[in-house]
């Protein structure tokens, strides 16, 4: 994959959220290890501060380990920072995660848009595997349609 930026929306997870905070604050939540430790892990896992390492620059790294609460399971993720415009943009490419069936890197692109007291954050994560570069066109629509048909 020569172009690291997902260009086909059908292959990516897209999320838009408004937050009641300045975009500096939202950007900081993504890039300050102390803040990341407070929110990143899933509900049943923690992201311990001492296992977060962020080298905030283009070409730097964004790494953390999620640890199962009251258990022993842990899961490490790592990203290369591809683009960085404080406090507007963070683009990172994942290390392959075979444990998550993600053998190819995906790119997480987070944009922080200023709406005064609020921030609109858009996130895209992908591309997820489609088997071939030609596979993208329309498959989500096709799958949704077929899944609906099957469920009916």
């Amino acid at each position, binding site marked *: 994959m020569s172009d690291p930026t997902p260009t086909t929306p059908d292959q990516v997870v897209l*999320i838009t959220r408004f937050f009641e905070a300045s975009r500096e604050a939202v950007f900081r939540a993504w890039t300050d290890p102390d803040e990341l430790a407070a929110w990143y892990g899933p509900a049943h896992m923690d992201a311990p501060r001492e296992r977060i390492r962020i080298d905030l620059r283009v070409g730097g790294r964004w790494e953390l380990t999620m640890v199962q609460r009251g258990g022993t399971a842990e899961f490490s993720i790592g990203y290369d920072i591809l683009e960085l415009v404080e406090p507007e943009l963070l683009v990172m490419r994942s290390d392959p995660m075979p444990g998550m069936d993600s053998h190819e890197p995906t790119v997480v692109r987070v944009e922080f848009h200023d709406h005064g007291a609020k921030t609109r954050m858009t996130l895209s994560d992908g591309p997820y*595997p*489609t088997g071939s570069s*030609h596979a993208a066109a329309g498959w989500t629509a096709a*799958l949704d349609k*077929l899944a609906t048909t099957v469920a009916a």
Partner: protein
Amino acid sequence: MQTDQLSLTFAALADPTRRSIMTRLAEGEATVSELAEPFAVSLPAISRHLKVLERAGLIVRIRDAQWRPSRMQADPLDDAVEWMQSRKRTWEARMDRLDAHLSRKENTDE
């Protein structure tokens, strides 16, 4: 589900003729000639499409029946949709926690 299976599923569905075949099969079993009817392609061409869909586990072909009708298998399709949706759910849940974190900070700072 393995990525290889997902790749097969997605590649199989990348073709408009094969998607039409799947839509038709969602209504029930059909023979090769029945499936070929709406398309301006030969029976062997339809058979080739069916092989791709069969290899991807999206359909089964009933071996012992004279006309070998094809039948839809929903599992790989559901898995493919489920996998993308689970990624989305993970991010949505994470954003809920980010929202809660920012609210807590806001209250602490005031």
